[in-house]
Every structure is written in structure tokens, then in C-alpha cells.
């Protein structure tokens, strides 16, 4: 190893490689920050570019994009409560409250420094422990992955403590939605409601764009605020955050980075699970878990260090075994193979030069990310000084192009719109969109691994119980899952004890007047969804049917429970009625933006993307204008700037195709 390190360092200092690292980082951060463009896509788009480079430079650049994009996702998570990539869902939990409290710069700085820290920890493991860790990763087969996914899902309980049943049912709904498409066990269409294109299923990204971005747009438009959030810059924020991270957050940082690296190593499980698990573990072991979700540094640090830790982890099995640990690693593997480079343990000897240059470049990229990120943060916080209406309209545009770009399919745009309205409704009735996203992400993995276990159990001399329980890792994961499910009760117990010690009567939190209605509505909604899916059940067979049936039964029970809860709350309001905690909502503006967005999606295939976008931007900016001045100048300016920016980034820089129209191309 040591004989390769010095020459590798030499390669790294070549001007071309430094330029590629910087460009890759900056491009990656932008891709990551835009909702809809994910790390996977960013890297995939640049693979053809690497064909013209030598293998090492190509790999260095792809690695830089990967790191940049995973970090970049946190920017939109903090600033507009929209995870830029699925890996930063957990970042919204504390990043967005921080931003709302006027501390956007602290949130962004925390995510930058924690990302860099997590990335370095992951790379450290990649450099020194790749071979033994790859062997450990292989121990995760069907049963282990099944329990890991359930462990991930159990975090919903911790995540939404106080609101656990709604969290669980939201997760269940997400899993149910994820069953739409091709049945993984018999490869026939399932829950397509007679509409063939639904066979491609509900992709995670468009659903998430809907649940987070578009629903956020509706929320913002409906709020009577002029700007997204107040912004009070903290002087010397870099030093303050750095001290805080290395001081009271160091345990959280280290633990989350290691969780990230480990989860990253497992084939199939990536940043989206790692960040949630890390966030929950931080919350669980904290002395005051109730602070989580109110906008604390630890929350952002946990999620962001974990998802960047994933990168080093995901590269371990990719380089040593040819098995990618994440979707992005799979794309990088493809680029490697196209260059004729064979992965394997020999990669560190036969092509040691390349391997070590790549690994060292990961260290360099994570360090370079700090200055690049600092520069971009300055630009990004400017977003908060743009009028909210314009930002919201802009997000709709990005959501449309982002969801289209995933599979170049207008269906995905409609899926995003649908989930946007759904997400808005869920937020109003306090169903948990985060849990729903987690269900959509983890659902297919749960089902797939469940199916594998059932197949494995068919071998003579083995049984379902044996397959599911016969490995120490599985048992450990079951234990962790149970612990996780108990946590809300333990937390509640601790809270009551603390209250008793302080001499206060243990009293449930006051319920608001509208609370019973929310429970009722969510219960009825859940039952409606279950009924709709139930009508399609007769088409299914085998494991696919049983799995769907199980989910439906769970959801129906929860729905009934929520309805009963609603009745109970109405008749016996616990803790007295508190009122006035509801923000006023401008329903007319919400309705306008919904109609405008739907019209936009509808005319896009006719007019083509740019004319439709210009029309949408201009008209909605005029109609939704909330200033006293003339709306026309601002609307035209917005239209011009947005269209130009989108054209530059998507068409010129990235070469992402935009929807074609019948009239204009």
C-alpha cells in the first residue's frame, strides 16, 4: 500500500485532477441542491464524459460529483424543507426549523462541516479496512436485510413520538404505494388500475418531490408571509459551528459517520436509510430527546455526517468485490468496467495506482468541499431575500423538470403533482409525510427480502422461522427493532417521572379544537385508500398478494383506530381545549397554484417545456402577486431569469432532456 501512496499523491496534484475535483464538487452540489436531480443522476450524466478521459481522472471526477451531490441535498433541505436527494430527508427535521428561526447560516454550516467530517471517516475506513469490511458486508443476506429494513421502519416510532399511530399508518401507506407496478415475485402488473404505464411503479424521487417540494410550495403560498424565513446572519458562524461540532457534538458526529459507513457497505441499503437511522440513534441516546425536531445542531449533524459516510462505505464492496453498495456506486462501477478495469481485491495491487489515487482524492474532495461549500452557501442564503411567491413558483418549475428527468416520463410529473396535493393534505391532518417517504423507500426492499426468505425456506430441512431467525446479525437487528419500538414509551415514562419530580401533575398535552376533525379525516382517508387498493386485490397471487393483504389489513385497522380516536377526542377533549394554534391559510392562493401547476403539467406536452414554463411563470407571478407595485415587471424578470437559468443548467451544462412539445421542440 505505502508504495502507491506517494505516486498517488503526485497524480492528485496534477492540475487537471484538481480542476476536475473542483468542477465535480461545484456541479455536484448544484445537482444535489436542486430537488429532483439526485446524486445517481448527476454521476450517470457525466459517465459518457469520462469516456474521453483517462480512467483515473474520470473516477476522480465522478467521486467528486458523488460527494458534492450528497452534501448539496442538505441545502434545499434546510432552506426550503425539500430534501435535494433522498439521503437528506432526515436533514429537514432540524435544518428547516433552524432556518425558520432565522439561523439558516448555522444550519447550512453545520451540514457542510458534518458532511465533510462524515466523508472523511468513510474514506478512512475505505483506505484502511476495505478488505475485512467487505467480508462483513457479504454476511447481509435476505433475512438480515429484511430485519435491517424493519429496523429502519421502526424509526418512524421514534421519529413521530406523540403521534405514533399516525406515523405508523403513514409508513404503511407509503409501503402500499410502493407496491404499485411490476410484482417482484411473479413479474406481472399489480395495482395498475387498468392503466398500463403505471407498471413502471411509483418512483421514489417523483413521490418525494411531491410530498416535500410541491406540498411545501402549497404551504408557503398559503401562508401570509412575504419571505420564506427571517434571516439573521451570525457573525463568525464558521468558528462557532466548528467549535460546537467538535465539542458537544463529537459523539453524535462519530457515531453517525460510522453508522453511515456501515450501512453504505451493505448492497442495497444507502444514504436514505443511513441518515434516518443515525438521526434516530442520536435522538434515542440524547439526554433530552425532545429537543430533536426543534432545530438543533445535533440533528443536522447526525443526518449529514451519516449520508456522506455512506460514500466511503459504498465504495468498499464496489472496489473489492465488484458489488456496489449504493445506486451511485453502481454507476461508478459501470464507468470502471467500461474502462476495462476489473474490481476485486487485486484492485489495490494490480491497479493500485488508480485505486489509491481515487481513495486519496476522496480525502481531498471532502476537504476542498469546505471552501467550495462556503462560497455557495453565501449565494444560497440569498434565496431567503427573494419574495416567497417567486421562490414557490420557481420550485414548481424545478419540480416538474426534476421529476420528468428521472425517467423522461410525463407520468412522473403527474405523480409528483398528485403526491404534492396528498402531502399538503397529510400535513394539514397531521399524517407524517416523512414516514410515508420512508415507507416508499423501504417498502420494496422489505418485500423483496421477504420473498427471498420465503424462497430460501423452501429448501428441505429449513423453515421460515429458521431462515428469519437463524443468524446472530438477524437476532441483533430484531433486538434493536424492538428497542426502537419501545423507545417512545420509555421516553414518555421518563418525561412523566421528570414531571413528577418537579412536582407537576402528569397531564396530557392539550388538544386543539380541530384535533378530533384531523384524526377523523385522516382515519377516513386511510380507509378510503385501503378500499381503493382492495378492489384490485383479486388480480394478485402468491407472496405479492399476501404482502399486500398484510399491509391493507394493518392500514385498515389503523384507519378504524384513528376514526375512533377522533370520536373520543370530540366527546372527551383531554386536557382542555386549546385554540388559536392554527396558522391562517390563504386557501384561494393555494387553489390557484394547484390549478396553475396542473395546467402547466397538462400543456407541457403540447407546447413544449420552455414555452409552457414561460407561460406558467409569467401568469402565476402576475396572479399571485402580493406586493402593492405593478406585478408585470417582476413577473417578466422572473420568467426570463428562471427560463435562462434552467436552460443553462439543464440543457447546456447537464444535457438533461426536457419534455418535448408537439408544437415546439
Amino acid at each position, binding site marked *: 500500500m505505502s508504495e502507491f501512496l506517494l505516486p498517488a499523491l503526485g497524480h492528485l496534484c496534477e492540475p487537471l485532477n484538481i480542476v476536475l475535483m473542483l468542477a465535480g464538487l461545484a456541479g455536484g452540489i448544484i445537482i444535489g441542491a436542486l430537488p429532483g436531480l439526485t446524486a445517481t443522476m448527476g454521476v450517470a450524466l457525466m459517465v459518457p464524459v469520462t469516456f474521453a478521459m483517462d480512467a483515473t481522472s474520470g473516477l476522480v471526477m465522478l467521486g467528486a460529483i458523488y460527494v458534492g451531490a450528497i452534501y448539496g441535498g442538505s441545502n434545499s433541505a434546510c432552506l426550503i424543507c425539500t430534501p435535494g436527494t433522498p439521503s437528506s430527508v432526515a436533514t429537514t427535521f432540524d435544518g428547516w426549523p433552524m432556518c425558520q428561526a432565522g439561523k439558516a447560516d448555522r444550519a447550512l454550516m453545520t451540514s457542510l462541516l458534518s458532511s465533510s467530517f462524515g466523508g472523511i471517516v468513510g474514506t478512512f475506513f475505505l483506505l484502511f479496512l476495505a478488505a475485512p469490511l467487505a467480508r462483513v458486508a457479504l454476511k447481509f443476506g435476505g433475512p438480515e436485510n429484511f430485519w435491517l429494513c424493519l429496523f429502519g421502519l421502526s424509526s418512524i416510532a421514534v421519529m413521530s413520538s406523540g403521534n405514533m399511530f399516525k406515523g405508523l399508518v403513514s409508513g404503511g401507506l407509503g409501503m402500499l404505494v410502493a407496491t404499485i407496478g411490476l410484482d417482484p*415475485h411473479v413479474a406481472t402488473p399489480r395495482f395498475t388500475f387498468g392503466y398500463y404505464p403505471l407498471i413502471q411503479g411509483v418512483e421514489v424521487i417523483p413521490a418525494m418531490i411531491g410530498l416535500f417540494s410541491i406540498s411545501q410550495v402549497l404551504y408557503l403560498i398559503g401562508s401570509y408571509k412575504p419571505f420564506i424565513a427571517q434571516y439573521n446572519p451570525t457573525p463568525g458562524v464558521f468558528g462557532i459551528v466548528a467549535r460546537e461540532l467538535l465539542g458537544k457534538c463529537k459523539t453524535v458526529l462519530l457515531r453517525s459517520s460510522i453508522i453511515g459507513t456501515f450501512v453504505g457497505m451493505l448492497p442495497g441499503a444507502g444514504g436514505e436509510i443511513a441518515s434516518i437511522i443515525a438521526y434516530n440513534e442520536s435522538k434515542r441516546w440524547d439526554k433530552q430527546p425532545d429537543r430533536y425536531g426543534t432545530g438543533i445542531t445535533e440533528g443536522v449533524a447526525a443526518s449529514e455526517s451519516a449520508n456522506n459516510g455512506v460514500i466511503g462505505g459504498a465504495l468498499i464492496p464496489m472496489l473489492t468485490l465488484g458489488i456496489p453498495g449504493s445506486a451511485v456506486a453502481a454507476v461508478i462501477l459501470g464507468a470502471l468496467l467500461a474502462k476495462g478495469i476489473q474490481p476485486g481485491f487485486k484492485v489495490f495491487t494490480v491497479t493500485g495506482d488508480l485505486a489509491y489515487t481515487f481513495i486519496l482524492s476522496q480525502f481531498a474532495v471532502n476537504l476542498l468541499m469546505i471552501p467550495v461549500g462556503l462560497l455557495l452557501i453565501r449565494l444560497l442564503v440569498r434565496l431567503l431575500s427573494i419574495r416567497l411567491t417567486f421562490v414557490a413558483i420557481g420550485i414548481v418549475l424545478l419540480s416538474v423538470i426534476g421529476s420528468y428527468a428521472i425517467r423522461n416520463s410525463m407520468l412522473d410529473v403527474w405523480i409528483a403533482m398528485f403526491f404534492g396535493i396528498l402531502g399538503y393534505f397529510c400535513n394539514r391532518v397531521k399524517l407524517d409525510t416523512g414516514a410515508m417517504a420512508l415507507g416508499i423507500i423501504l417498502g420494496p426492499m422489505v418485500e423483496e427480502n421477504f420473498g427471498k426468505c420465503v*424462497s430460501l425456506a423452501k429448501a428441505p430441512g429449513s423453515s421460515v422461522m429458521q431462515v428469519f431467525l437463524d443468524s446472530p446479525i438477524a437476532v441483533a437487528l430484531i433486538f434493536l427493532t424492538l428497542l426502537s419500538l419501545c423507545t417512545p414509551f420509555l421516553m414518555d415514562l421518563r418525561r412523566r417521572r421528570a414531571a413528577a419530580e418537579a412536582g407537576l401533575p402528569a397531564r396530557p398535552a392539550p388538544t386543539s379544537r380541530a384535533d378530533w376533525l384531523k384524526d377523523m379525516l385522516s382515519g377516513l382517508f386511510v380507509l378510503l385508500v385501503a378500499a381503493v387498493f382492495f378492489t384490485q386485490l383479486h388480480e394478485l397471487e402468491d407472496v405479492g398478494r399476501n404482502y399486500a393483504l398484510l399491509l391493507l389489513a394493518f392500514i385498515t385497522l389503523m384507519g378504524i383506530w384513528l376514526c375512533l380516536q377522533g370520536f373520543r377526542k370530540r366527546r372527551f377533549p383531554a386536557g382542555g381545549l386549546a385554540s388559536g394554534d392554527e396558522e391562517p391559510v390563504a386557501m384561494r392562493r393555494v387553489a390557484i397554484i394547484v390549478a396553475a401547476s396542473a395546467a402547466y403539467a397538462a400543456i407541457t406536452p403540447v407546447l413544449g417545456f420552455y414555452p409552457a414554463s414561460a407561460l406558467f411563470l409569467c401568469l402565476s407571478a402576475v396572479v399571485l402577486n402580493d406586493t402593492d407595485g405593478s406585478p408585470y415587471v417582476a413577473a417578466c424578470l422572473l420568467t426570463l431569469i428562471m427560463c435562462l437559468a434552467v436552460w443553462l443548467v439543464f440543457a447546456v451544462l447537464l444535457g438533461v*432532456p426536457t419534455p418535448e412539445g408537439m408544437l415546439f421542440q
Partner: protein
Amino acid sequence: MKQRFFTTLALAALLTLIAAMPAQAVYPDKPVTMIIAFTAGGSSDVQARIMEKYWNKYVPQQKWVFVYKPGAGGAIGFGEIAMARKDGYTIGGINIPHLVIQALTQKAQFKVDDFDYICQVVNDPQCVVVRKDSKIKSAKELFDYAKANPGKLKVGLVGPNSGHHLMYLDARKKLGFPVTEVFYKGAADQNAALLGGEIDAMFGNLNDVMRSLEEMNVLALAAEKRNDFLPKVPTLKEQGYNILSDIRRAFVAPKGIPAADLAFLRETFKKICMDPDYLKDMKTAGQPAEYLDGAALLKHMQSLETEIRNAFAKK
């Protein structure tokens, strides 16, 4: 007023038509759209990108515009090709037997006859693979062990309803191959499961197996003849098992493009496939190149259709 408007409109439409007429000069006189039914950066994309390099060499005046339409194991993209405008300016890559199986078993929106076949470019044979430390050292040992211990052997397949599944059904029919089958979502998962010991053996594509060759022992190829990538590995036929199975990549246009355009495409693709530099690039990328002309490919598709109909009907 209204009438005048429509007259103007009709006139405008006529003018556009006339303006478009002389455009039919020499094919191709505008960029050709290439639909890839899998994600960018995937194996199908990499292969098409190599083709593109040589298309630019032989047809420098017009480029390819790549459009990715992934989803449902390729079915979405294949459907897009079948339904594309039949002007010769939309072509695409397909995978065989995926396309045939989808057409027959998944209510897909296309049939085998919905395409004009340009040519086949890759023939990626299936391999029988075990872990390097496995006690089983040959295909014969594997099949004998399976027969002596029904159900004991766990065999991993990508699927269901895939090329791997088809080969498995064939093996079961011809040899009696009583094993426990486990399906995986993709080759990466399947490789991981074999290396981790969850399964004892697997049927996998050469191209995918090559990634983890250090850890695996390829027992045999389900091909007519040995492959340059692994010249020491015997074929199943050599060992007395009549099992052939492969995944092929080909390029197609929607059925009914102008005959001259199809001829031009077939001619150009043939030139590319014979180019020694192209073959070298394919070898570096681990893509087992095998050219087959459009007519021969169509014949293969039709025989496959019968085979698949029988295999999955009796399942």
C-alpha cells in the same frame, strides 16, 4: 372573421407541409433519437455509447440523441420504440429475451412483430457459477449433486420471468434439476448472495460474472462455443448437456420505417460491427460482441417466441 381565420390556418398548414417536402433528401438529414430502455450509465448505455463513437465515424453529419426511458425491466422503453414515429429518426436498443417475455407474459404494449430489426450486437451467454471455495468443481458434479439431494442446492437467478429463469426452466425440463430457486432483483444482488453464501450456485451472465471473477468459479457456459473472455471454461454442450441460453442486445426501429432508411441503418451498423477498433473497445468494456443481421435476428426472435410460450405455459 372566423372563416378567414380558418382559411389562414389551412394555408399556413399547407405551407408548412410544402416546406417540409424537400427535407426528404438523403437519410439521415437530422439527428437520430436513440432510445435506451435502461438507466444512463448502465450496461446497455455503455454499449450504445461505444456504437455511437463509430456511428460518428461512418455518419459524421448526423449525431445520435440519447433518450433514456427506463422502467419495468425495459418494457417502458421498448414500448416507446414500438410506438415511435415511423420516419426512421427514432431507433433504440432492446434486450433479448426480456422483450419477448414481456410481450408474452406482462400485458406489454408491444409484440415481437412491432419492430424492424436492424441487427444484433452482443451475445452475452449465461454461465453456471459457484463460489471459488465450493466443493463442486464441474457442471457435471453440480447437476449430479442436485439430483442426489433434491432441493438441497440453492440456486440464485435474476428474475422472475427473465433469461435466467428461462434457462433454469430449460435445465429442469431436460436434466431434472430439483433445486431451491431464489430470485434476485439484479446481478449485483445475485453476485453478493453467492459470495456471501446465501446461495450455492447461480446462473449469471458472463458480463456480470466478470465483475467478481476473483471470488467465483465459472463451471460452464450455456453457449454454442467457448468465449474469448474465458477461453478455459467449457460449454455445457461439450459436457453433454444440450442447454443454450443467453442475453442479447440488438438495435431496432419501429415496424414500417421507409425501406431505404432501414437498409441504410442495417448497412451502417454492419460496418460498425466489423470495425476492428470497435471490437477492441467492446472487449475492453467486457461486452461479448456478436453480430447477427436483421433477418437472422428476426428468425431467432420468432423461434424464441415459441420456446418461451411453451416454457412459461407449463410452469
